[in-house]
């Protein structure tokens, strides 16, 4: 991986982090633990779903592994809309 592509990936990840996060729909969750098991950095996603909190863990890579693996569609990536990409002009940063 070139430095340029690495930086590009990092920039995309950070951009994703400021624009949204994974949000659980607790009413669909049965606590099977597949999400936590598949999280590459061991975030306890399942506990977030139990208490109904978005995964605001600063280490979250927003890789989507938990979202894809959940057999019941509990998790979704949601934009926070706090930072509007146009106003922030993220592409120019």
């Amino acid at each position, binding site marked *: 991986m070139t430095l340029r592509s690495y930086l590009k990936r990092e920039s995309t990840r950070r951009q994703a982090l400021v624009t949204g996060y994974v949000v659980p729909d607790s009413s669909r969750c049965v606590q099977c633990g*597949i999400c936590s098991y598949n999280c590459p950095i061991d975030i306890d996603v399942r506990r977030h779903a139990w208490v109904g909190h978005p995964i605001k863990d600063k280490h979250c890579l927003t890789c989507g592994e938990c979202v894809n693996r959940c057999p019941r*569609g509990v998790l979704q990536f949601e934009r926070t809309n706090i930072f509007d990409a146009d106003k922030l002009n993220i592409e120019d940063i």
Partner: protein
Amino acid sequence: MARFIIVGTGAAGISAAEAIRDRSSAAEIILIGDEAAGFYSRPGLAYYITQEVPKSQLFPFTKKDIQNLHLQIINARATSIDAQAHTIMLHDGRKLSYDRLLIATGSNAALPSLPSAKNLQGIVKLDTYEDAQNIRKLSKRARAAVVIGGGITALEIVEGLQTSGVKTHYFLRGDRYWSNVLDETESRIVEHRLQEDGVKIHYNTEEQEIIGKRGKVIGVRTKAGNQIKCNIVAYAIGIRPRTQLAKSIGIKTERGILVDQYMKTDTPDIFAAGDVAQVFDPYSGQYIIDSLWGPARLQGRIAGLNMLGESLTYTKGVPFNVTRLAGLTTTIIGMVGFGTDVDLDGIARGDSETWRQLPDAIACQQSFDINHLRLQIGSKKILGAIVMGDQTLSQPLRHLVSQQVDITAIKDQLLKPKAPIADVVATFWTEWRTQHDIQ
């Protein structure tokens, strides 16, 4: 200091304990459970037997979590209650006094009455953590298995056995799968996928005898006289709410323990929640049992808070479940079927009696490849829906059904022959959510 005793360590029991602790740091909370495993994800057992999660992942709460909640968990079986004296007896002779008691004993898998099915190694069910371990253990050596029953649990077992490389025969007493919840097209989609995975479906087939040798299962003889060699016979023929404790002291029961909107039984200071509770359903005017995780959690929470003296009411919502049928993600919402299914006695796990209460309604459906969508349209609203495969409309439909949204504006479009109902609903939903500011 008040003492709260909760019989049962499942989703309802734990939710009640958590709710009590939320409001009272001083309350003494004791949970009594007859499973050594304590609190685990019962629906998660399906993913354990398909080897998608390891055993350790089945426990949502660590020992530390339990300690932090200051819960005392006693691994014992509650045998009787003295409601007058406010005491409960355990199988080992211990007697505990309580101020408020919650019965959250859940349900048990029903077992066959065949005399030949007694005491043979290889006869299994998928009910508890121990059962799941047993299935995993037996699958390692088994060559073939026969699965008998219906509903979600039967397919969970089929999938688990297939994953372990066990040749699986699936007996259906009738001519299609889950006939009182799914329509014929949906049953055929599921059956076709099972067959593609190598499962042999035996229609109109009932077991006559389980054949054993040296204490182990070696085959099944059908009523038609055929014999199938197998090392495992798995039953998923329905569940029974565990009402014995309540019945023994005359608490009012029907199929489950009857509770009012506060989750109270007819006996002072005794509450019930979860699979064992039969709750009032305002939609049908009847008392209904749901064997679903979500309602169990909510009922447990409300019961817990009311045990502390609050007066919260439980309103039974539209039951829904997201599950996997032959590997196909499927959402079942509201009223979608009716009648009985010969493969199930009552309901199974992850099930609701409401799903079988379909009144007069017109069905409209659309299929594309493996994706299938069915809506049950009433006079002004959608009464129920089944979403198989693509789950884009799962959440919107849950909202439209549970909120009883008036869909008169699109009813004609939906009922036209070959109508693109997925597109019609999607467009309607986009407008609706914008107008009502729904995320």
